[in-house]
């Protein structure tokens, strides 16, 4: 039989298999080239783990840092508000003291009505401290209120005290902290011409209801650009939750009250008394109740950019 050489060899060797010695696998495992490959693989895996670890650690650090910043901001804001609510009290000391007593508890106030002479005020601080102490977060704020009135108490006419008492009683009856705080902020806004009327409410809600902004039901932008381009022209917080007794207040860094809104749809357009405000930081205070009736106060800074 005749057959072409090529075909003979192709048939025989196309799938030719030769026996293999047993040690070949071990030799491959010990081959320097293979060892090098394994080492490289190890290094690659290690570096992947290292990169992952770095990413996790750095993201944790960033989160922590941001949280600290928020806390600091919160402290700054409350410090500013304390200053600005204390300022009028230093000028009209006794009245504010009276109000401090009257708002939280009417009963405490009643004790103060009959006689408002010096010995009476000596009692006041104790009443006040007993009613306020467990709630106050910043005791520093109370101390000036207590100390200063004791010295200048005599100057206060009784009529004034009674009207103050009425106003605050009304407020207490309403049991509406939003209203109180508006009045408070309005009174502050009036550059303290009638200082006695409603200052104490600012103190009480500020100190008592310092809720954590992290639990806010709102998503609050931190900057806006009221330049009329239709984009972010108005600062207003947005929420999908049920909100009651909502009120937004804007303050300048100087403490001046600039804006109030009680409607979720109505935000600040960057103007005050018809004039455009300058770029810079402003403070917002958002007070509201959630559907369980719990009161919230969200505070923070916002940046106005022109």
């Amino acid at each position, binding site marked *: 039989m*005749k057959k072409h*050489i090529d075909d*003979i060899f*192709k048939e*025989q060797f196309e799938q*030719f298999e*030769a026996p293999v010695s047993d040690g*070949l*696998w071990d030799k491959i495992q010990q081959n320097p080239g293979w060892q090098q490959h394994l080492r490289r*693989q190890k290094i690659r895996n290690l570096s992947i783990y290292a990169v992952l670890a770095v990413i996790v650690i750095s993201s944790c650090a960033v989160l922590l840092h941001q949280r600290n910043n928020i806390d600091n901001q919160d402290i700054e804001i409350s410090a500013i508000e304390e200053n600005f609510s204390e300022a009028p009290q230093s000028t009209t000391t006794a009245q504010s003291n009276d109000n401090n007593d009257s708002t939280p508890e009417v009963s405490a106030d009643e004790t103060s009505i009959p006689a408002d002479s010096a010995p009476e005020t000596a009692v006041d601080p104790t009443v006040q401290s007993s009613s306020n102490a467990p709630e106050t977060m910043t005791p520093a704020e109370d101390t000036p209120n207590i100390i200063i009135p004791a010295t200048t108490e005599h100057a206060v006419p009784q009529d004034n005290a009674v009207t103050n008492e009425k106003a605050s009683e009304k407020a207490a009856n309403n049991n509406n902290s939003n209203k109180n705080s508006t009045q408070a902020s309005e009174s502050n806004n009036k550059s303290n011409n009638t200082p006695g009327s409603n200052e104490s409410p600012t103190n009480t809600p500020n100190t008592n209801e310092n809720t954590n902004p992290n639990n806010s039901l709102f998503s609050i932008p931190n900057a806006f650009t009221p330049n009329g381009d239709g984009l972010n022209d108005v600062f207003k917080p947005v929420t999908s939750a049920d909100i009651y007794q909502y009120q937004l207040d804007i303050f300048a860094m100087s403490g001046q009250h600039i804006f109030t809104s009680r409607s979720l749809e109505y935000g600040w357009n960057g103007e005050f008394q018809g004039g455009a405000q300058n770029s810079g930081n402003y403070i917002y205070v958002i007070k509201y109740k959630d559907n369980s009736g719990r009161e919230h106060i969200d505070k923070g800074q916002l940046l106005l950019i022109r």
Partner: protein
Amino acid sequence: MIKDRDIVAGCKADKPKSQRLLYDRYCRLVMGTALRYCPNPEEAEDLAQEIFIKIFTKIHQLQEEITLTSWIHKIATHTCIDMLRAKKKPLTIPYEEMPNEIGDMNCNYYDDIPTEKLLAFIQDLPEGCRTVFNLCVIDGLSYEEAAAMLSCSETTLRAQCCKARKILKKKIENYEKTY
């Protein structure tokens, strides 16, 4: 029976178990290829080692549509050529005049020559002839591809092939006469 595809997937994930499976399935084929190119059994074993390391380190380049067998075959032949090149720098295919007459390349053959004997015939060929015959005839590369791989002219390859065929024909005929 584990499919080749699963073995490849395992090898791509650098799983030692899959690598061992691939080795067990294809080591004889690799060894056979190595022996065709390299007559010395010890050298052939080294060659097989190199081939497997190449397979394991480059398996992530294997595309789905290519079968594992043909890919391993390709890796094996390339590695063999590389090794021959490294061993004999540079691997030269001696220039060969094309014979005027190609002659009849058919020979009497009765399917009775054991494969080991035929392998020995190949291994006895001069290195140039052997490499070219392996590449172009058994492994089925085109002369063009082989010329690129060995960096020589196609004519030389054809001539070397003819020479190899002549030698092999003579050997087969002698074998048939003696037995």
